[in-house]
């Protein structure tokens, strides 16, 4: 009995850590760069698939891939923002128009990334085994890979939260999220900060993808579901609140783990039910304004 509960809790924390990461990334992109990035899940997929390739073909340790996927995703995100979204920003007649057109552009991006990935990797489901050694915790056995993933997700999530809350760049980010014009007047290089945040959000997605690949199988179509989950977590936590996404991620992870135990096919349905409940009762979310 205790073992089952521990199993569910650990699985929930693991899922929660991953959800927190991807939700914080999306929240950063929407909260600061004001881009509702529908292709967020595709960056997760790229992180996962790249790690699979690096490990199975080049035998590079997945944990080392953290240092590769993160920066690569960041650069990709940064460049995409500087070229595509920046251009949309200047040609949009209002913030509302930019929100719509950037969302649609990211919809296009989703199809581009997913199909390029399909051309390269094919549609098969891939997986690899790394650190699948059982570890004994209070009488229950857990895969070391899952514990490592859990640890990494929480560590990165916390590090990121502290970065935004404590550092100077973090302050600039928060200022830009509040009021881009004033922040710009105060000497914050606004173009840079927006692209930086977008890139950072992409990096978190890439890292999350890499962590996911350590525990679960991956394939080129995996991104969509993660994007949807990230969206739900962001709403639950509160639109624009990064701490909210962190907490919301763990909440949903634990709920997902419990629901999966009862019936594995229903976790997305459960998340949507929470989504619906929130929209009815408190659309601003837990920590939203």
């Amino acid at each position, binding site marked *: 009995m205790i073992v089952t509960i521990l199993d569910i809790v650990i699985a929930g924390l693991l899922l929660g850590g991953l959800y927190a990461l991807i939700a914080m990334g999306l929240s950063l992109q929407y909260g600061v760069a004001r881009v509702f990035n529908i292709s967020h899940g595709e960056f997760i997929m790229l992180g996962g698939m790249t790690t699979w390739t690096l490990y199975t073909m080049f035998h590079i340790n997945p944990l080392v891939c953290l240092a590769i996927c993160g920066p690569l995703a960041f650069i990709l995100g940064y460049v995409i923002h500087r070229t595509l979204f920046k251009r*949309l920003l200047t040609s949009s007649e209002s913030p509302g128009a930019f929100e719509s057109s950037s969302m649609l*552009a990211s919809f296009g991006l989703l199809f*581009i990334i*997913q199909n390029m990935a399909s*051309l390269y990797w094919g549609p098969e489901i891939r997986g690899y085994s790394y650190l699948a050694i059982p570890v004994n915790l209070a009488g229950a056995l857990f895969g070391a890979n899952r514990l490592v993933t859990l640890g990494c997700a929480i560590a990165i999530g916390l590090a990121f939260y502290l970065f935004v809350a404590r550092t100077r760049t973090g302050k600039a980010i928060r200022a830009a999220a509040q009021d881009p014009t004033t922040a710009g007047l105060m000497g914050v290089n606004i173009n840079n900060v927006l692209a930086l945040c977008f890139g950072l959000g992409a990096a978190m997605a890439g890292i999350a993808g890499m962590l996911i690949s350590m525990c679960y199988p991956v394939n080129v179509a995996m991104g969509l*579901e993660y994007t*949807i989950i990230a969206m739900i977590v962001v709403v639950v936590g509160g639109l624009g609140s990064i701490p909210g996404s962190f907490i919301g991620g763990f909440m949903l992870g634990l709920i997902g783990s419990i629901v999966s135990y009862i019936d594995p*096919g229903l976790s997305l349905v459960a998340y949507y039910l929470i989504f619906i409940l929130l*929209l009815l009762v408190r659309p601003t979310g837990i920590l939203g304004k």
Partner: protein
Amino acid sequence: MWRPGLLLAILVLLASLRLYASTYTVILVTSILMYIILTQSWVLFSGPTRYISLASAAFFGVGIYSAAVLGMHLPLPVVVIAGALASSCLALFVGALTLRLRGIYFAMFTFGLVELIKHLLLWYEIKFTGTRGRFVVLVDNNTIYYLMLATLVALLLVAYFIRRSKYGLALQSIGEDEEAAAHTGVNVTAVKVITFAISASFMGAAGAIIATRWTYVDPYIAFKSLFSFMPVLMAIFGGMGQFYGPVLGSAVFAYLEEVLITRFPYHYMLLFGVILMIAILYLPDGLVGLVQRLRRGGWARGQHANT
């Protein structure tokens, strides 16, 4: 605007298609008509109100599944109406829930809706019916064609009358400034929800009709986010303001898909994604808007094309 005589001529041409065209052409034109329905329905709501719906695939899929479930028991026209009704009920629910809130919630909810319904149906089928997917009653191509054509004509008539009525004005005002519209006496939530439901009903009808051609459907086949993507692509590329923008966009991409899908399944979707981005960046009023601007002589930003 197009003269009634021209429209009538086109209608006659289309109605008599099977007399002079090959079966392949009839099938192709049916696909084009289906896409026009999806795109024009999408534009009916998302065009004037600027609330971007990403749920077209959900309504289309509900229509498909209605045909799969009911096709064996009921005559086809009834099935089509059932599909339309089921989709509009879903839309009423989604609309009542999310259209009271900011547009971003609506976009998010509609985006995930396709996956949600897919998961629900899969779960239900595995748990209760034990089957995966269903077989659909076969119907001949000509019947499918005429049903699709009739549905499109109905849609165009409905869209026309809405635009000319005070509700067309209300829809446009919602897109321009929703708060001002509400203060001028427009019940913005009701107008949005009802229009959304109407647009969904036509998508459901189209789904119910086309399902009979696919013979076998399962949740993966019926609920593809591609069908949320295509109407958006076609509308933006063709031009959202004019009546014939979506028609143009649909024809172009339906034909391209037909030509490319067998040999280049991933390439064509990639291409479409690229075209969407280019259209968003460089063709704000779509192809139709571009032609209009060129006609007026010069690249100066023309008026928002919306008659």
